[in-house]
C-alpha cells in the first residue's frame, strides 16, 4: 500500500514527527542537512536539492564521538566513566538512494564481528526518508554501475517520489510505517494512476545516462591483478593527499582514537573517536617512523581497493554506492570511475 503527500504538507509532516528532523537546505552556499525548525511550513522543508555536500553518515557515525571520560587523582587508580549516547530519535529527509545504500554498508562494519554500541545506539534512533532521483542530480552519478538505481529503496525507511505537486510515498520498513502513521490525515491513499506514474518515473530515471566503468564483477579481480601496477603512481600524480574524497564518502568509516586532556589536577579528559582517513600521511605512520603507505599512489590504491576489493572479499558487496562526491569535489580531478575503467582495461 502506498500514499500521497502534498508537497505543501511536508513541513506539517515534519512537525508531526516526534523526532528531530533534518532536511537538506542551502546554507552558506552549500547543500547540507539542517535541522527543520519546529512548525516549519513547506518553505522550511523543500526537497529541491541536488545531493548534499556531506553525506548523512554522521547521524549514526558522527565526526567526533566521546567514548568515555577519565579522571585520575594523584596516587589513585584512574576512574573511567562510560558515555554511551542516548540520542533522541532523528528523521533525515531527502536522502538520495545512493546515500541510503550507504547505511547498510556502514551497518556491516559496525555490526557483527564487532558490535559497536556507540554506532548502534545512534543508528537505532535514525530513520531515513529517501527521495528517488527522477534525473541524476550530478553528472558524476554512477549508482547504476554499482548495482543501485536512482529509485533504490535499500537502506531507506520511507521512499518519496516527486510527482510534481505531491509525493508518492512508500513505507519500506516498519519504522517507515510508523512515520507515515504519525502524519495521519496528511497522507491520502495513492490511486492506481499515482502508482503507475511513480513507476514510470522510476523506469525513466533508470534509462538516464550515467557514468560507468563497465562490469562491476570485473572490478575486484582487476584490482587484485593490478595491485603492483605502475598505474597507481601515475593516476595519483596530481593527488594532494587531502581528506575530501574520504570525509565526503557516505561509506568511508575509518577512525582514530585519542585522549583529549581537559584538566591536569586532577588529570581528566575524554577519550574520543574522530574520523580519520587513508589519504593522510599519518594514517599508517608507525611509531618507528616507517610508513607502509608512503606514496599517494599507495593511498589511492587503498581507497579504491577498500571499496571494490577488500570490502567485497569481507562482505560480499562493493562498498561504493556511486554518489560521485569523491569525483565532483576532488580539487584535481581524480576520478574513481576513470581509475576503475583503467584497471579493468589493463
Amino acid at each position, binding site marked *: 500500500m502506498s500514499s500521497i503527500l502534498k508537497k505543501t504538507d511536508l513541513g506539517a509532516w515534519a512537525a508531526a514527527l516526534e523526532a528531530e528532523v533534518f532536511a537538506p537546505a542551502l546554507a*552558506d*552556499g*552549500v547543500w*547540507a542537512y539542517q535541522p527543520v525548525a519546529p512548525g516549519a511550513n513547506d518553505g522550511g522543508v523543500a526537497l529541491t536539492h541536488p545531493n548534499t*555536500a*556531506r553525506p548523512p553518515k554522521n547521524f549514526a557515525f558522527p*565526526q*567526533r564521538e566521546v567514548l568515555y571520560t577519565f579522571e585520575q587523582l594523584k596516587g589513585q587508580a584512574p576512574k573511567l566513566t562510560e558515555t554511551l549516547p542516548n540520542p533522541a530519535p532523528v528523521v533525515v529527509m531527502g536522502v538520495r538512494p545512493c546515500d541510503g545504500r550507504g547505511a547498510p554498508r556502514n551497518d556491516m562494519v559496525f555490526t557483527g564481528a564487532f558490535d559497536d554500541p556507540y554506532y548502534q545506539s545512534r543508528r537505532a534512533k535514525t530513520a531515513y526518508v529517501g527521495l528517488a532521483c527522477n534525473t541524476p542530480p550530478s*553528472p*558524476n552519478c554512477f549508482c547504476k554501475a554499482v548495482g543501485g538505481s536512482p529509485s533504490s529503496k535499500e537502506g531507506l525507511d520511507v521512499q518519496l517520489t516527486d510527482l510534481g505537486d505531491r509525493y508518492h510515498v512508500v513505507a519500506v520498513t516498519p519504522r517507515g510505517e510508523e512515520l507515515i502513521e504519525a502524519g495521519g490525515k496528511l497522507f491520502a491513499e495513492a490511486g492506481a494512476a499515482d502508482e503507475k506514474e511513480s513507476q514510470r518515473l522510476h523506469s525513466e530515471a533508470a534509462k538516464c545516462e550515467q557514468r560507468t566503468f563497465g562490469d562491476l564483477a570485473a572490478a575486484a579481480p582487476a584490482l587484485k591483478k593490478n595491485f603492483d601496477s605502475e598505474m597507481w603512481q601515475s593516476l595519483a*600524480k*596530481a593527488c*594532494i*593527499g*587531502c*581528506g*575530501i574524497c574520504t*570525509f*565526503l564518502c557516505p561509506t568511508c568509516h575509518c577512525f*582514530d582514537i*585519542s*585522549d*583529549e586532556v581537559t584538566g591536569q589536577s586532577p588529570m581528566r579528559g575524554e577519550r*574520543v573517536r*574522530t*574520523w*580519520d582517513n587513508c589519504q*593522510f*600521511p*599519518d594514517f599508517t*605512520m608507525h*611509531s*618507528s*617512523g616507517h*610508513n607502509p603507505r608512503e606514496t599517494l599512489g599507495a593511498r589511492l590504491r587503498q581507497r579504491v581497493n577498500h571499496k571494490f576489493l577488500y570490502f567485497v572479499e569481507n562482505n560480499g558487496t562493493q562498498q561504493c554506492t556511486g554518489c560521485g562526491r569523491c*569525483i*565532483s*569535489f*576532488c*580539487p*584535481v*580531478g*581524480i*576520478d574513481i*570511475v*576513470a581509475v576503475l575503467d583503467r584497471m579493468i582495461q589493463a
Partner: protein
Amino acid sequence: MVDIVNIRAHAKDLLEKGTVKMVLGYQRGTAGVLAEPAFITDAGQADHLVWDPTCVQNLALYLVNEKKAQSHQRDPDTRPIAIIAKGCDSRAVAVLLQERHFERKDVHVIGVSCGTLGVVDKNKLSKALNGRVATKVEPHGTDSFKVTTAEGFVDVAAADVLADRCLECACAYPAMHDVVFGEKHEDRGYPARFTALGQLEAKSEDERWAYWEGHFNRCLRCYACRSVCPMCYCPECVVDSIELMVDPTTSADEKANRIKWIERSAVASENSMYHLVRAIHLAGRCIDCAECERVCPVDIPIRMLNNKLEKEAKDMFGYEPGLDPELPSLVASFRDDDPNSFIR
C-alpha cells in the same frame, strides 16, 4: 589572446631538446568541466596540453612535491621543470625562489597572461547556468565567456563567473617568466584589490566573530586548504605530526605524550586554531591564488583570512610577496624604516 598551439610547440621543443625533464600544465579531465593537472614528460604528449578559463589549479605545488620526491631519490634527474603559470601562479614560484626552496635554474616558467579575463569559479558558473552543466568554457571577446552545455551555447559575462581572486587580481600578467604568451592589460576594469576584505573589515568585531565562528564550526578539517597550498610545504604540520623521532629508548609514555598542538576533533576551538596558525604562517607569503578557498568542499571563505594578512604586510611594510624572486622574504628582511609599531 593566448593560442594553445604556441604553448604546445614550445613544450614540445623543450622536451625534444631535453632541456627540461617535465612540463607541468593542464589537460582535459574526466571529472567535469575543469581542466586537470598534466605532467608531460614525452614530447609526443605535448598536444594533450590545454589552456582555457578552466585551468584553475596553481601548479607550483607540484614543483614543491617534485623537490621533496627528489630528496628521496638515489639518482635524481636534476634537469629543470617547465611550468605553465598564470600571473598568480608565477608569484607562487617567485616566493618559493625567495625562500630558496629551489634555484632559479631548476624551473622554466612558461607564463600565460590572463589578459582581461582569468579563471572561472565552478560554483558561480553552475549558478549562472541554472542547472545546465557546462562542458566547455572559452574566452569570448574581452569580457565574457562562451560556455558549451548539452542544451547549446550560453554567453556569460566574465564578471559574473570569474573567481573572486581574479576579480581583484594584482598580477594578471606573470611577474616572472622565461617565456610568456598573451598580452599585458593595465586596466582590467574589475574591483580594486581588497574590496571584498574591506566589506568584511567594515563589520563590527562581534559580527566578524560570529562570521568566523560560524564558518570554523562547519570546517571538516580535511586539510585540503593546506594540502593544495604551494607555500604550506612544511613536512611537519601542527595538525598532523609525522616526524616524532623514535629510537630504542623512546618510551611508550613519550610516544603517547608527544606534543599535540591541535586535537583531532573538528570543533570550533581546534578548527579556529588550525586556521589562525595557518594564516599567520602565510603572512607576507600568500600570493592570493586562492586555491585554499577554491578547494574547500564546504565553501569556507579562507581567502579572506589570508587576504587580511596580505594587506597587513602591504600596509605595514609596503611588502608584496612574489613580485621579485631576488628580494628577500618579508620575515627574512629588515629595514631601518620598518614601522615596528608592535615593539614598545
